[in-house]
């Protein structure tokens, strides 16, 4: 190693040998002093280096110029320190730059030798990997942005569809509500007509009873007339014929009124059945109206638009009908826009 070469040359044995070759004491003392000064400078530098002070360099020492080996060793030692110092600075700066995305800054290994040069290549390869990773990440970010954009388009589309469906539903429910109201009105009108019809039927029943009673009386009168006519003999013959005609007429009237009474009874039964049916229809319509009102409340609200998102969140349990589907659709649309803005801001 370069460090020991100079020391070997400066060993006491070498000095003794030199002394034996006819050199003066002064020369030997001068050489010894030069080596001693060189050694002490080297020792001080070694101490600094051992403490981690990489700024340390071996300074020039007295007598160094007269003994080139001392100067050469000093230069080689400092050269090594310059290389390792440069290596440390390069490694730190190249990796720091890479971490900050400044990938153009390479690890310059010019001036480095041997292992230091090889390690410089290794570190530069790491820098290259960092660069590739950063590029891959950038690519992923781009893809994410594209996905986010597609997602945005689809979600916005769906949100719009939900809004449109809600509005269409609300419109349908409004029509349904109007129709239901119409059915209720008509059902009430039919009930009134039924009551009227039942009244008329009862009146007719009374009239027929009256006719029937008159027919019975007439028949009795006709029979009496026929008996009286038979008693007066030949003179009452013509009267008997009239009385018989009257009897037959009253019989026919009686038959007809019985028939009418029967028919009236049938139609009264039908009217009663119709009344029962109407009652059931009324009940059905009533339930339908309640259901439609509830549906309307859920879709178009109960006159309290935008009852609040908190209420919407609890809607499932509450079923209070205070939050409209159209409001929910509007809130969904707003939330979707808010979410997408946040998503795009992240990209």
């Amino acid at each position, binding site marked *: 190693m370069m460090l020991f070469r100079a020391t070997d040359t400066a060993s006491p044995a070498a000095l003794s040998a030199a002394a034996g070759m006819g050199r003066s004491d002064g020369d030997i003392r001068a050489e010894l002093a030069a080596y001693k000064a060189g050694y002490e400078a080297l020792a001080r530098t070694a101490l600094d280096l051992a*403490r981690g002070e*990489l*700024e340390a360099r071996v300074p020039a020492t007295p007598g160094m110029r007269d003994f080139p080996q001392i100067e050469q060793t000093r230069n080689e030692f400092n050269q090594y320190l*310059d290389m390792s110092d440069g290596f440390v600075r390069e490694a730190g700066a190249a990796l720091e730059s890479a971490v900050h995305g400044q990938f153009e800054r390479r690890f*310059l290994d010019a001036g480095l030798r041997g292992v230091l040069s090889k390690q410089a290549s290794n570190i530069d390869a790491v820098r290259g990997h960092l660069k590739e990773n950063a590029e891959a990440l950038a690519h992923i970010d781009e893809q994410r942005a594209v996905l986010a954009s597609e997602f945005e388009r689809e979600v916005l589309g769906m949100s719009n569809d939900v809004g449109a469906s809600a509005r269409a539903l609300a419109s349908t429910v409004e029509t349904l509500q109007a129709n239901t109201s119409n059915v209720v009105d008509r059902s009430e009108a039919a009930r009134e007509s039924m009551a009227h019809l039942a009244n008329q039927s009862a009146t007719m029943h009374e009239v027929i009873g009256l006719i029937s009673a008159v027919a019975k009386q007439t028949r009795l009168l006709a029979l009496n007339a026929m008996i009286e006519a038979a008693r007066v003999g030949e003179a009452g013959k013509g009267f008997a014929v009239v009385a018989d005609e009257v009897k037959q007429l009253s019989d026919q009237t009686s038959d007809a009124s019985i028939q009418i009474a029967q028919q009236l009874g049938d139609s009264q039964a039908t009217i009663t059945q119709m009344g029962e049916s109407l009652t059931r229809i009324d009940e059905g319509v009533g339930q339908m109206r309640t259901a439609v009102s509830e549906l309307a409340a859920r879709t178009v609200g109960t006159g309290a638009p935008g009852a609040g998102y908190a209420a919407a969140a609890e809607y499932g349990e509450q079923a209070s009908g205070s939050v409209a589907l159209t409001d929910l659709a509007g809130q969904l649309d707003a939330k979707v826009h808010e979410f997408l803005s946040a998503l795009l801001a992240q990209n």
Partner: protein
Amino acid sequence: MKQNVTPTGVERVLAREDIIVTKTDLKGHLTYTNDIFLKISAVAEEDALGKAHNIIRHPDMPAGIYKLLWDTISQGNELFAYIKNLAFDGAHYWVLAHATPSFSKDGVHVGYHSMRRHATPEAIKKIEQVYSAMKASEGDLHGTARAQASLTWLEDELRRQQLSYSQWIWQIVDGQ
């Protein structure tokens, strides 16, 4: 050492495998020079140590580059720059200088470090064009105004090319 060396036009070339290393204190006075520096600068160590680093400035260099250099490293950052240096005997040599702040083992900022490498003829050719334009922008200005003028010229040029200084200098280092 005389303060004003007249350039002789003699060019020296730093070998590809060699590096020049100098260290200065916080004021820019030389505290260490390696043997390559002494040889290429034609100066004895005892004549160099303690001198202000700017004694090796070549008059062809635009002042804006030194301003950029000091602005950058005094903020604790590194800077690469092509520099035409003046030897003590009037010769000159081109280098790719890497200047960095130096810290003691306790993290105290104690000075600056410059490691200089061989500059390729292609890089020198490109840099000379830029530097001569920068120099021209300095006109008759003096002092800080002079440095600011050429630095502004360079910044405008880089903005035009849409490059950071680092991207620009590394394009030249990489021979692009």
